[in-house]
C-alpha cells in the first residue's frame, strides 16, 4: 500500500522566516527592532499597560489593534487582584516565547505537533521585595518550565526541539542573562 506523505503543518511559515534571515544578512540595519509598551497607573497596585506600535525593518509598524494588560497584586497582598501580578506576566512571556519557538523549530524540522503544554513555576522569597532581608534577591530564585509535548518524533528529537527553542528564545535570554536597563524621569 502506498503511504501518503502529509506535509507537516504547525501553522508556522518557515519559508518567510528563512527568507527574512537571508534578506537581513544582506541589509543588517533592517534587523534593528525596538519594542514598546506604556503603562498607566490606575489605583493602588493596579495598572494598565498597552502595546501598540513598534519599529523594525526600517519603518514603523502598528499592531492590528491595541493590546492591553491589567496588572495588580492578589488579595493576600492587601490588593484587589484585578490582574495578574507582573511576575506572573513574566512567566507567561517566557512560556509563550518558548512555545512559539517549539512550533517554529518543529515546523523547520518537519515534526508535526499535536499538543504542546508548558507549565511554569517561579520561586520567590518575598522577604526580598519587602526589604526585610538584604541577602534575599527581589526576583525569582529559580524558574522551572515543564513541557508536555505530543508530536510525531522520538523523545530525543523532542528534547532537542525544546533545547533549540530555548537557544533561540528572546525572553529566555532576557531572563537568564543580564540586560542594561536605564530608567529616567521625564
Amino acid at each position, binding site marked *: 500500500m502506498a503511504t501518503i506523505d502529509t506535509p507537516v503543518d504547525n501553522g508556522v511559515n518557515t519559508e518567510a522566516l528563512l527568507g527574512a534571515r537571508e534578506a537581513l544578512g544582506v541589509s543588517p540595519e533592517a534587523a534593528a527592532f525596538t519594542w514598546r509598551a506604556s503603562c498607566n497607573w490606575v489605583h493602588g497596585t493596579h495598572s494598565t499597560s498597552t502595546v501598540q506600535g513598534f519599529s523594525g525593518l526600517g519603518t514603523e509598524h502598528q499592531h492590528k489593534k491595541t493590546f492591553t494588560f491589567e496588572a495588580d497584586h492578589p488579595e493576600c497582598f492587601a490588593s484587589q487582584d484585578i490582574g495578574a501580578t507582573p511576575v506572573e506576566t513574566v512567566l507567561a512571556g517566557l512560556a509563550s516565547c518558548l512555545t512559539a519557538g517549539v512550533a517554529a523549530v518543529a515546523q523547520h524540522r518537519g515534526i508535526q505537533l499535536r499538543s504542546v503544554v508548558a507549565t511554569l513555576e517561579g520561586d520567590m522569597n518575598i522577604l526580598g521585595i519587602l526589604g526585610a532581608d538584604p541577602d534575599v534577591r527581589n526576583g525569582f530564585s529559580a524558574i522551572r518550565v515543564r513541557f508536555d509535548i505530543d508530536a510525531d518524533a522520538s523523545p530525543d528529537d523532542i528534547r532537542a526541539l525544546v*533545547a533549540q527553542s530555548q537557544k533561540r528564545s528572546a525572553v529566555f535570554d532576557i531572563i*537568564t542573562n*543580564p540586560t542594561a536597563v536605564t530608567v529616567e524621569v521625564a
Partner: protein
Amino acid sequence: MRTAVVVIGAGHNGLAMSRRLSERSIDHVVIERGEVANSWRTERWDSLRLLTPNWLTRLPGRAYDGPDPDGYASAVEVATFVDGYATQFSAPVHTGTTVTAVRAAGEGYEVTTDQGRWHCAAVVIASGACNLPALPLVAADVPPDVAVHTPLSYRSPGDLEPGRVLVVGASATGVQLADEIHRSGRPVTLSVGEHVRLPRTYRGRDIFWWTDRAGILDERHEEIDDIVRARNLPSPQLIGTSERRSIDLDTLAASGVEIVGRLGRIVDRVAQFSGALANTCTLADLKANRLLTRLDDWAVAQGLDGEVGPPERLEPTSITATRPVLELDLRRAGFRSVLFATGYRPDLSWLEPSVVDRKGHIRHSGGVVDGAPGIYVVGYPMLRRRRSSYISGAISDSAELAQLLHDHLDKRVSMKSQ
C-alpha cells in the same frame, strides 16, 4: 622582485600550498615573519598537545612515521615535523620577513615586506586564523587588580598569581587550561557558554578514527547546514593524553572546578553569569549522542560491529542538576586572574583590498576570496571541509586551491595572448 605567487606564512598550510605550487612548477616564494612553523614554536602553551592522533598528522608528501601513531604531538613535535617538511622539498621560504602591506597593483598584487617588495599575480594568505585573541567586550570590565590572560600569552600555571582563576570559555583550550590550572593548586571557576562535547575514544577507538573513516571530516563546506555557525563553533572538548582520557564538564566538576554559565557582564567587580547553563549542556549532550548514533549507523553499514566495542551513550551532564552560581564578586571571592579562552581572530591589518565583511571576517568561498581575484586563504576552520580545522585538512585543501590558482594564472595568460 617578481614571482607568480606569494604565499604569506610558512606554517603547515602555507608549506602545503608551496609544495603543490612546486609540483606544478609555479614560481613562488613563501614569506615568513619568523622561523618555519613560527606560531607552533612561539604562541602555544607548554603542555599543548594536538587534538588529533599522530597518525592523522600528514601533509602532501609527508606523514607521521614515528613510534607512537596513537599519541598526540606537542607543539615542539609539530614544529619539528613542519620544519622537516619544509626542508624535504626545499620550500622557497624567506624567513625573518614581515609582510606590511598587500595591495592591488596592475593586474596582480604588490606585497610589501620589511625586506623589499614583491609583484605577483596571486597571493595565498596562510598566516593563520589564530593571530590575536578574540576578547568579548566584557573583558574591558575586569577590575584593574585582576590580571587578564589569553591562551596566546599563557604558557603554564606558574604565569598566574596564586589565588582563584576565572577561565572564560569551554572550548578544547578552555577545558584543558581549566584542568591544568586547577591541578596547580589555583582554584578554577569555568564559565561555559555554547560548547561541543566529544568523548576521547568511542567503542575502543579514538573519536578521530571514527570521524575520519566515516567521512565526517570530509564533509564539504557547501554541504554543511549553516556554515557560518559551524565555523564559529568552539573546538570540541578534547585533550590529548597518554591514557586517552575524556574531559568534559562533569570530569572537571568532579576534580573540583566550579562550573558557571556564560559570562554576561561585570558590574562593580561582580561578574554575572547566564542562568542558561543547563540548556547549553543539554544541547551539547544531545548533539554528541546524535553524532554517536550516526557513527553506530555507519559501523552497521560497514559491517564493523564485530571489530569495535559495543555502542555507548554519554550520560547527560549532571552538574546542571545543581543550581549554578549566577554572581561572583571577583575581589571578595579572591580572584586574581581571568583567562579568556574565547577564541582567536586573524590579523589581516596589512591586507588592503576590501575583502572583509561588516564583522571583520574575510569573505571567501572555500578559501577563494570574494572580490579579489587571485587571492586565496588557507588554514581557517572548516575552510573547505570539516577536516580543514586540522592539520590533515591541508592535503585536500591545498590540492584543490592549487588547481583553482593554476586555472587563474592560465586565464590571465590566455587573456594576454588574445
